[in-house]
């Protein structure tokens, strides 16, 4: 196998081995000899505009995201092309190799019967109930909490792109690698970035993720003003579909309704003009027909068994906006930032299921006095402390925030719980990422142990809680976390008591 040495457009040296390791829709991919990066050449000749776009992506757009304070944070969330190259008249890109955890360590069941060990963890493996139930090895599957982490990472990465004025244009489970064993995710295939008014898209997207307005107008000429092409609003649709699929293992628009007996027309109608949420609260036209499903798609494939409300109140609201109000009305779709915030708030509502054999392992608290896991039906046994968070906008008065934290044994509390001006994202300092305290169930009592909070105070008993000491969580107890601007007060509620 020959190694080819060439110079990149920026003058640096690039090497690759002359054997195709993969083919995408538009590119052929080769490994560098040390496998630290890959080289991808476009099969078709690229015009001036495409070249200009790629130079911007590897240059100024990349620098704007990565060469700032905290820029390193994004290296894990994107596989961003670093250089452009030209060889034998073909234009190409240099990209970092995917991180090791994005390749299957075990693969499929029965000693990897499918032979996927070492292959990329393409999102489709996880977004499908059948693949999850029948093929993936249990060690690869992760638990439901991990899928929330995956979705948070994807939302965050999309949010950063959009904040820079860039649209991915082809978000799908093929272009997002995920690792549910650790909750990590990375966006790949960034070379198709769309800049409104500057670089138009060259793909429509991937089936399952294309927004209805794009499908509806695809018969029109590209320069027709009525034609809708991928942009930030269509990215938002794709993001909502990704989140729905990773959390619920089915597609939000693929129900039982047949709009046309010609399958090609039916596909266009059901994803385009007639697109309808399978769980629409009042319009039942497109409900999933359980008789259409294979046994391996159950129970996840049946929304009647596992409705989207299991994702909790914050996400339900956003799914409603994405698949009801915003499905045919792009400006109503939730932004990536809203998804990130709602997912983060939902994580604080999660509880580990007490049934060790539960498939999901975690569930979102349903705000009832008798909580139970909606997946396996196991009822929560014992007292469940719920923390209602209040924050102060002026000294001495605290207002409710529609923000709750469920407590479980050995759970940590963090700086972003203590102060409403902080969010768990790339802006946190190393110090702010460390826990400030933790919850334990000890001698039949729920305790909060203070690790770093200097202002911690039991307001009910007017007693300071020094670092290293604990405060018991009792019904109605008020605990002040911080006296600083934006500092929060906790009001404890004991559910299931």
């Amino acid at each position: 196998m020959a190694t080819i040495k060439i110079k990149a457009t920026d003058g640096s040296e690039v090497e690759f081995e002359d054997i195709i390791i993969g083919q995408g829709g538009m590119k052929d991919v080769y490994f560098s000899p040390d496998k630290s990066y890959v080289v991808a050449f476009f099969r078709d000749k690229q015009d001036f505009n495409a070249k200009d776009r790629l130079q911007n992506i590897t240059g100024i757009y990349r620098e704007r995201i990565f060469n700032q304070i905290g820029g390193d944070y994004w290296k894990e969330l994107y596989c961003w092309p670093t250089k452009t190259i030209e060889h034998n008249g073909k234009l190409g890109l240099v990209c970092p190799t995917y991180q090791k955890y994005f390749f299957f360590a075990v693969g499929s069941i029965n000693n990897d019967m499918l032979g996927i060990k070492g292959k990329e963890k393409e999102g489709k493996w996880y977004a499908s109930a059948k693949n999850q139930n029948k093929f993936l090895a249990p060690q690869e599957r992760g638990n439901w909490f991990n899928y929330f982490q995956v979705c948070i990472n994807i939302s965050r990465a999309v949010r950063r792109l959009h904040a820079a004025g860039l649209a991915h244009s082809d978000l799908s489970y093929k272009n997002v690698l995920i690792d549910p064993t650790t909750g990590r995710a990375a966006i790949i295939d960034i070379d198709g970035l769309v800049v409104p008014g500057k670089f138009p898209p060259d793909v429509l997207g991937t089936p399952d993720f294309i927004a209805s307005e794009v499908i509806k107008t695809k018969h029109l000429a590209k320069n027709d003003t009525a034609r809708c092409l991928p942009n930030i609003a269509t990215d938002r649709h794709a993001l909502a579909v990704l989140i729905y699929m990773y959390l619920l293992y089915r597609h939000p628009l693929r129900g039982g309704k047949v709009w046309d007996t010609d399958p090609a027309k039916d596909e266009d109608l059901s994803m385009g003009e007639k697109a309808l949420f399978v769980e629409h609260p009042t319009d039942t036209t497109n409900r999933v027909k359980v008789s259409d499903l294979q046994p391996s798609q159950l129970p996840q494939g049946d929304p009647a068994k596992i409705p989207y409300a299991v994702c909790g109140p914050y996400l339900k609201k956003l799914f409603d906006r994405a698949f009801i109000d915003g499905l045919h009305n792009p400006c109503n779709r939730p932004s990536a930032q809203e998804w990130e915030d709602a997912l983060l708030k939902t994580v604080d509502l999660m509880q580990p299921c007490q049934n060790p054999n539960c498939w999901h392992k975690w569930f979102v608290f349903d705000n009832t006095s008798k909580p139970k896991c909606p997946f396996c039906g196991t009822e929560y046994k014992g007292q469940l402390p719920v923390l209602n968070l209040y924050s102060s906008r002026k000294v001495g008065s605290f207002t409710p925030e529609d923000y709750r934290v469920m407590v479980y044994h050995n759970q940590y509390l963090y700086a972003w719980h203590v102060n409403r001006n902080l969010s768990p994202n790339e802006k946190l300092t190393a110090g702010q990422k460390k826990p400030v305290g933790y919850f334990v169930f000890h001698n039949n009592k729920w305790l909060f142990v203070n690790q770093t909070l200097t202002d911690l105070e039991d307001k009910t008993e007017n007693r300071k809680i020094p670092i290293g000491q604990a405060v018991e969580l009792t019904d109605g107890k008020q605990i002040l976390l911080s006296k600083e601007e934006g500092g929060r007060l906790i009001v404890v509620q004991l559910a299931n008591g």
Partner: protein
Amino acid sequence: MRGEPIEAIRVGLETLVASLRQDPFALENAWLSVITFNRTPQPILPLTELETLQIPAIPQPEAAGTHLGEALEFVCKKVDAEVTLSSPERKGDWMPLLFVMCNGKVSDTQLFSQTVPLLKRKHFGKIVACLVGHHPVTENVRQFTDNILSMDTADSSTIKTFFEWVSTSVSVGNRSIGATDELVLPPPPAEMNAII
């Protein structure tokens, strides 16, 4: 075809199944059926879900003759019997893809001419003809498809490359789609010559 190319096709089919099984989209959706033909068509693998299927031995042809017409007629019947069409109440199967491997010759000309219009009405997602042999005939297969590939030398590695390409063609359903409406197949492998 006799001898090595037949064995190579079997190995190629195994490669095809193995690589399709590694594609989560194909694994969830694709079914495969294999029909051989000489004077008579013979289904050697009924339409089977990917996860369970095993490629059987392909019998060496005993009779001479290339009854492509009869083979295509058989394919039409199989499509009628096995592909579930959409009804107003129930979604049907996706349009099938048909890959025809032959030397392009037709011994049953009359039946072939009658069958081609039938075949074209069957709503295949795509029909691809792959011509094998040193002097393949293109004008017959051109009557039912414009996607004609010619393999210069039908040795086992070429055939393996072909089936790897078939596998990417099957998984093309979940690839990014361009601004055109047609199902776009990936470019054929280097050893093949697409005849335009």
